[in-house]
């Protein structure tokens, strides 16, 4: 009996690595600390009522933001561990299999559990406010999406200390990801962690499409809608076409592993190339899904901080919509070298280059907007300006990769690693950070400290070039990706050391940002106006932080950049005050079902990960019961009385 338990524990818990024992201890300590604080200050009820059951899009946005920052930390630590291992030749800091696990979790976490939630954080923080809406179309579904993401992410992260991390790369190509080569639970964690959070992402896609199409304030025609909302629409259209493919792909991989199916196996008629096609049919659009909202953010920021209307509004919209379509026809550029006909390769090479055109149009539009503008270099603008050269270089190296014959040289080399980090960090991370700095005051009611922010900014930026420019050279020198060590004779030592130094500089930049947030909570400049940047769009017309019902009176939109026009008209004295009439506000009720249901999904995932079918069955029954219960709930909304609206507005310093 005792032997059995010991046996089980030694396979269940990951052992034999000081890093992991360290993680075990810190996880247990953190959990104890959280439980202690919640109990001591009697915060359980508050946590449940205000956060776990909330359907308020702004709070959901905040939770996404916190989760994504934590994941940025985890993914960043992975990155630093890899760079330490690669700093000098013949380092024995990580074992090869540990290195494999780390590059896998790093890539997966950064894209699916950092970039995606940070994007959803921004959707939630901004879109309804920008549209003049009181909420998203389906608040309950929105909460469900969040909790599915959260529990999927937790499941994935758990693999580090329980069962073992996946180590077949962030896209899990078979046969590496099949039972034969990945026998442990790690790969199952990968499948279920992503599957569960992916369902949440799909639901968010549907939710925001309907929100944007149907919830705009009266008068806001699509042709007057702010560009960030347009970018969200484009991104969500890609989500609804791409994520079902991912769902199927992961399910098939799971069937191969769990039920002995032969989709991607080497025997039994399976076809591993089919996996590559499927995963990249999702994977390529995925990178556009995360980058297009960043384009929207830059458009808002450039206009606001140049004090000008955005240049080429229509072409911006077209560019985003074209990207949404063409991004689905480029997937095969990820495996040019794996042998297909010349005409297929030519098709995908050309379509890849075509995506570059609308992107180029956008860059020029931003530059023209800045041209002769009165630019103020606040933090959001700094990141935007830093983005432009970074993205242009990244785009240029992307086109180099798209030249199919040349790709035989670059494929899977460090040149590629440098390229995709350039677009992902320079485009996605810089973009989202810019957006967070920009909209932070709207959510929290204060600005983030400029001085600390500038330190963070410069460390990130200089660090970025120091880290990734040498990698282009290393690629040319023959270093391929996923090497875990190399010898002195290769001549790669100097450049690798420089690259590692750069990575640590970015790490320092991140620490400055955390410090900046902590510092600003106490000392940050309070925003009493609701419009700290002299903004142009509707979200700046209401107090900061926005009250839970967003708009006391739903705005009537007449122009593009309506809030800016209103301010101009007020300054000119041509503004006609409309008598505002308060009405009771229709709001959704909180619900515990999303949280509970996501926990049951977690059980499903955890059960399948270890092959405990009984646990998965319990999970499914729970999920089902939650859906059933929800179907029978009719009393799901309420009205905020006029008096309460008046009181809330008064406490925020407004009269209505």
């Amino acid at each position, binding site marked *: 009996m005792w032997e059995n338990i010991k046996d089980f524990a030694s396979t269940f818990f990951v052992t034999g690595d000081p890093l992991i024992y360290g993680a075990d201890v810190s996880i247990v300590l953190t959990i104890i600390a959280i439980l202690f604080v919640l109990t001591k200050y009697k915060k359980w009820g508050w946590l449940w009522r205000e956060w776990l059951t909330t359907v308020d899009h702004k709070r959901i946005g905040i939770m996404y933001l916190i989760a994504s920052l934590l994941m940025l930390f985890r993914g960043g630590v992975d990155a630093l561990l890899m760079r330490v291992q690669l700093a000098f030749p013949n380092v024995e800091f990580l074992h090869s299999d540990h290195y494999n696990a780390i590059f896998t979790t790093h890539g997966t976490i950064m894209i699916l559990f950092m970039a995606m939630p940070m994007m959803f954080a921004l959707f939630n923080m901004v879109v309804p406010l920008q549209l003049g809406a009181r909420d998203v179309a389906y608040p309950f579904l929105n909460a469900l999406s969040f909790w599915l993401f959260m529990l999927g992410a937790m499941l994935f992260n758990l693999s580090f200390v329980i069962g073992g991390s996946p180590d077949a790369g962030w896209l899990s190509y078979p046969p590496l990801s099949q039972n034969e080569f990945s026998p442990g639970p790690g790969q199952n964690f990968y499948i279920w962690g992503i599957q569960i959070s992916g369902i949440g992402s799909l639901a968010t896609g549907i939710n925001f499409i*309907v929100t944007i199409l149907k919830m705009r304030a009266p008068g806001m025609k699509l042709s007057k809608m702010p560009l960030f909302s347009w970018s969200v629409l484009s991104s969500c259209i890609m989500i609804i076409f791409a994520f079902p493919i991912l769902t*199927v792909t992961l399910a098939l991989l799971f069937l191969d592993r769990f039920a*002995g199916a032969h989709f991607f196996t080497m025997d039994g008629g399976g076809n591993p190339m089919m996996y590559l096609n499927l995963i990249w049919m999702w994977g390529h659009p995925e990178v556009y899904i995360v980058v297009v909202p960043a384009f929207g953010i830059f458009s808002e920021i450039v206009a606001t901080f140049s004090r000008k209307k955005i240049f080429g509004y229509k072409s911006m919209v077209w560019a985003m919509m074209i990207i949404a379509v063409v991004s689905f026809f480029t997937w095969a550029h990820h495996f040019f070298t794996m042998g297909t006909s010349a005409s297929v390769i030519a098709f995908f090479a050309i379509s890849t280059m075509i995506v570059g055109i609308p992107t180029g149009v956008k860059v020029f539009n931003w530059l023209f907007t800045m041209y002769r503008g009165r630019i103020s270099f606040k933090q959001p603008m700094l990141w935007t300006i830093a983005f432009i050269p970074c993205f242009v270089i990244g785009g240029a190296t992307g086109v180099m990769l798209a030249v199919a014959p040349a790709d035989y040289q670059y494929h899977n080399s460090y040149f590629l690693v440098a390229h995709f980090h350039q677009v992902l960090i320079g485009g996605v991370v810089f973009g989202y950070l810019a957006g967070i700095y920009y909209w932070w005051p709207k959510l929290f009611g204060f600005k983030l400290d400029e001085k600390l922010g500038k330190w963070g900014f410069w460390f990130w930026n200089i660090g970025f070039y120091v880290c990734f420019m040498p990698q282009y050279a290393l690629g040319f020198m023959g270093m391929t990706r996923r090497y875990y060590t190399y010898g002195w004779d290769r001549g790669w030592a100097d450049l690798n050391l420089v690259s590692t130094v750069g990575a640590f500089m970015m790490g320092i930049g991140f620490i400055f940002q955390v410090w900046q947030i902590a510092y600003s909570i106490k000392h940050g400049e309070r925003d009493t106006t609701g419009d700290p940047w002299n903004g142009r769009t509707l979200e700046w017309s209401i107090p900061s932080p926005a009250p839970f019902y967003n708009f006391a009176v739903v705005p009537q939109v007449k122009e593009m950049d309506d809030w800016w026009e209103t301010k101009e008209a007020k300054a000119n004295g041509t503004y006609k005050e409309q008598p505002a009439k308060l009405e009771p506000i229709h709001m959704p009720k909180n619900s515990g079902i999303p949280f509970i249901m996501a926990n049951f999904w977690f059980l499903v995932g955890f059960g399948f990960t270890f092959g405990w079918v009984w646990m998965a069955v319990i999970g499914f029954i729970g999920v089902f019961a939650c859906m059933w219960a929800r179907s029978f709930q009719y009393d799901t909304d309420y009205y905020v009385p006029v008096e309460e609206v008046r009181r809330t507005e008064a406490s925020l310093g407004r009269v209505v």
Partner: protein
Amino acid sequence: MATNHDHGHGHDHDHHEEHEQLKVLGFWIFVVTDCVLFGTLFATYAVMMNSFAGGPTGQELFQLPGVIASTFILLTSSFTSGLAVLAMNKGNVKQLIAWLAVTGLLGLSFVVLEVTEFMHLMSEGATMATSGYWSAFYTLVGTHGLHVTLGLFWMTALMMQLKRRGISAVTRRKITNFSLYWHFLDVVWIFLFTVVYLMGVM
């Protein structure tokens, strides 16, 4: 109208209608995503079409009469779900529930037939693990069957709600979505029948 608010708000009716409209649109988009899902499964099936790996082929094992019977049953159920919607539009709850019940029974027999078919195939030595072809077959056909099964539970829940609450803006929207879902499954089945069974035995 069955709303549970005790406030004197004049736009109540409009407001709810509008909200329910919104949910129908969302459901349409959900159906689009489900189309992509089935499209992907069809594509994998097409790739695996000839990957028998020395195992049995569809041509050898399919028994068309049973499948044709299932097809008729499902088509009929789609028709009866249409009749249910007609009854709803006439405001006749009893008839509505009755037609839903008929639809449900037909759906149930479809699922039973499918399970019987799967058992038969497995007894003939064609399982998920036999070859790429059968993996794709069970996944594609099974996913459709799973959808139908879920639809049965959904329908049961709706009948219970109709009994309790009658026809309101909310139940009306739910029935609309349900019938959309049910017709959609019918269309998927027609593709499935053609691509998997007809082309399989040809």
